[in-house]
């Protein structure tokens, strides 16, 4: 036990050093001893002895990672059956490699391979028998849509790549693997279209991924934060999505996608602000309906960030803005409220955030409580008790609902956060404060860049052609150029699809 511990510690220290190459011992026991030591006598390290070509052999594997069925079917059964011949030929596994360096073995084992050793041989066989335990491909819960594909990414990188490859069956789709996380060795995949994505962009992204130096890469949030141009901005600059169709669409616009093993979110960059307000639904419904819905979404952004501030400014500074019919009903409601509007608003906004967060954490069986507590207690009683006025409750409810309209959770939180500084400015300067706040936000949006493309792209810098797919969605046949913001290599994406219409030789 003692030497194990000491080994553990000593190894900890030596881990940093480059691993020395150790040739495979001829003695099985020695090899086994080495492997055991390297894995610190892990309890899930299993082995089974076997004989082949009259020599004794060992199959070593980690039972937690290996598919026992596979080992039995593809290794043990053929070896036992033939008992003579070439190992490469006898074993029916797909991935089988020969190694003479013993130091590679532990790494191979923890990736779910099994190792085949033979007495007297200086080579080991590493055979891929990794177990695949994945959940079903299901629709992402937080990015639901009405019409269109209902599949979503899962935690398994290969499945995710399958989903994308299946959608873009094109050899130009390039997949590059990276490893990030010094300790966890998380696998990343960088996807882009070779003939579309801007080479400068790829170079830039490649450089940024390579410069990530972390012990652990847990979530794509880590990667996003390492890669964003302005990490301290309130706005998300990298789009996270769990939808393969969305991912594929962005790939085809010449953007770059990063997938990480162990996480169902794809990182898409560079994106513009408006990408956060696009949903695949826009393209599945008819274009007029799609445009309408998208407009509503963008208006909801303005509502969510501005309405509480406007309410404060109007009640506190310029009540004369309200028309006379409205002002008396508002006044009768706020007369009893003991707080100034800013305090009222802050209380309600923070309550809302708390409720939302509680709603996420609570198990669904207790979830109903939230409805009762939030809706009845806070909504109704707070007004009855005279703490908060009805209009304020309406304002907060509007804010909450509008912010949840955004198809991306990141932007929805950003909108609500944006409301707070605006509220403070409104409490200080009224409408003038809000105007300056809006100007400030606009400047900030104008300033933001994401890998060399402007964040607020088709608006700042102004490009009328890209407006077709920004505030509204024009019919697909009129979107004959890709958006310019990622500077794709080819712009044309549609060529006279409705040509049949012109060809009609005006009969009758």
């Amino acid at each position: 036990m003692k030497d194990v511990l000491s080994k553990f510690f000593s190894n900890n220290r030596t881990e940093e050093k480059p691993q020395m190459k150790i040739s495979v011992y001829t003695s099985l026991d020695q090899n086994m001893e080495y492997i055991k030591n390297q894995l610190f006598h892990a309890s899930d390290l299993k082995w089974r002895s076997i004989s082949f070509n009259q020599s004794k052999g060992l199959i070593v594997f980690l039972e937690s990672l290996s598919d026992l069925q596979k080992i039995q079917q593809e290794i043990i059964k053929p070896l036992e059956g033939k008992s003579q011949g070439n190992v490469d030929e006898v074993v029916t596994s797909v991935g089988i490699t020969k190694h003479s360096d013993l130091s590679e073995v532990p790494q191979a084992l923890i990736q779910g391979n099994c190792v085949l050793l033979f007495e007297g041989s200086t080579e080991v066989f590493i055979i891929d028998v990794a177990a695949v335990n994945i959940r079903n491909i299901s629709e992402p819960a937080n990015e639901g849509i009405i019409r269109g594909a209902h599949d979503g990414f899962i935690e398994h990188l290969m499945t995710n790549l399958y989903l994308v490859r299946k959608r873009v069956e094109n050899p130009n789709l390039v997949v590059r693997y990276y490893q990030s996380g010094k300790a966890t060795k998380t696998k990343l995949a960088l996807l882009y279209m070779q003939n579309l994505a801007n080479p400068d962009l790829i170079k830039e992204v490649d450089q940024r991924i390579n410069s990530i130096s972390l012990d652990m890469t847990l979530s794509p949030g880590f990667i996003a934060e390492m890669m964003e141009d302005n990490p301290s901005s309130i706005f998300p600059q990298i789009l996270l999505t769990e939808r393969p169709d969305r991912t594929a669409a962005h790939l085809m616009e010449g953007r770059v996608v990063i997938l990480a093993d162990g996480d169902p979110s794809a990182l898409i960059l560079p994106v513009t602000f408006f990408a956060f307000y696009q949903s695949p639904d826009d393209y599945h419904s008819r274009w007029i309906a799609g445009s309408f819905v998208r407009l509503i979404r963008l208006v909801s952004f303005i509502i969510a960030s501005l309405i509480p501030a406007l309410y404060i400014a109007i009640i506190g500074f310029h009540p004369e803005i309200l028309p006379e019919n409205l002002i008396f009903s508002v006044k009768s409601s706020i007369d009893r409220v003991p707080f100034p509007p800013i305090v009222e608003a802050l209380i309600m906004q923070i309550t809302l955030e708390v409720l939302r967060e509680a709603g996420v954490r609570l198990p669904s069986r207790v979830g109903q409580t939230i409805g009762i507590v939030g809706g009845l207690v806070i909504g109704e009683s707070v007004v009855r008790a005279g703490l908060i006025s009805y209009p304020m409750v309406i304002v907060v409810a509007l804010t909450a609902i509008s912010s949840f309209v955004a198809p991306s959770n990141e932007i929805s939180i950003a909108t609500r956060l944006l409301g707070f500084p605006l509220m403070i400015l409104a409490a200080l300067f009224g409408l003038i404060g809000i105007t300056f706040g809006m100007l400030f936000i606009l400047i900030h949006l104008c300033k933001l860049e994401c890998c060399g493309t402007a964040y607020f792209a088709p608006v700042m810098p102004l490009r009328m052609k890209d407006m077709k797919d920004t505030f509204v969605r024009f019919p697909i046949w009129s979107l004959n150029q890709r958006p310019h913001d990622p500077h794709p290599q080819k712009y044309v994406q549609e060529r006279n699809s409705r040509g049949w219409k012109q060809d009609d030789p005006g009969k009758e």
Partner: protein
Amino acid sequence: MKRICFLCLVMSLLLFIAGCWDQDLLKDARLLYGGGFDFAPKGKLRVTFVIQDVPAGEQQSPKNDIISAEGDTPMDAREHADDQISRHLRSYKNRFVLIGEELAKQDIYPVLEVFYRDPKSALNARIGVAQGTAEDILSLKKVGNVLIAEEIDELIKSKEETTTVPKVTLEKIYPVMLDPGEDFVLPYLMEQGARVDVSRIAMFHNNKLTGTLSPEESSMYLLLKNSKGKEARFTQNMSSIGEMSTTEDNPQRRYDFLTFNVDKLKRKMKLKVQSGNQITVHLNLKLKVSVIEYPKDRLEKKQVVAELNKRLSKKMTDLAQKTLEHMQKARCDGLGIGRQLMAFHPRVWKQQKEEWGSNYQKVKFAPVIQVEITKQGIIN
């Protein structure tokens, strides 16, 4: 990072010192719904304010609080009124201003000046002249089931739509008030029993009340001014014997009246200056009207309609003549004749500027009104 900390610090500092300098909380305000100005003894001004309160709760109806105070100027009087009520008196939702008849006979601009100077005042408040004193009318408190303030506001509003009184707000009379070439007119409110009647127009000259027009004349003036509301109804006696015969003399003629609504109005005003600075104003009005009530006869025959057209034209022209006469007597240049002179005959204007009031009385008006019946309702 340092910058963010600094920003946060500034933000929180600002929040704490947020005296919110200009904050003017709605809940701390008592909202003025309307006000009246009258003469008080010793050359003082008496103001009467209607304050509208809406008690909290769902089924509570609003209440009016009427308060009077005296002072040297409107603002002074308002301060005195403010002393008598809790919270702050705020006038940014003021709906109307009433001016007592006696006060209106003086220059009313000084009374209204404060409304124009205050950046928060409600310039879209209506303005009217009260027969007797404004206080008397406002003291009615309730007219029928409606609070006096709402009643006055709504009443004037509905009368504007029926082309009975002009659409006048504080803002609209401001340019006219200071312009020497035009006079304004205001609705004239009368107390009748426990009700308020708005059907007449009070005429002003040089911002002083100089007379009133009868209800018919008021509507006619508005037609001449080319500012028809949504509807404009007239009832004319159609008896051919003439105006001398009344219904009592001739019972058959009892229902010999025609009520019509002016659907379309086309006005042409031409100003001619002849030698000797004789100013003639040609007013050509073309009215397309629909008959609303005509108990006496049917309108299937073309001759009947033509005859009616002719007679109506005559009647209306007479009415116009009468209206203009009254206006000239009151020296009220409500059609902006002076303005026209100023713009298109500046030389004439220069000569007549000094004595425009009396010169205006010498202006010749030649109104011609053509009435054409185009609609007759659903029966002939």
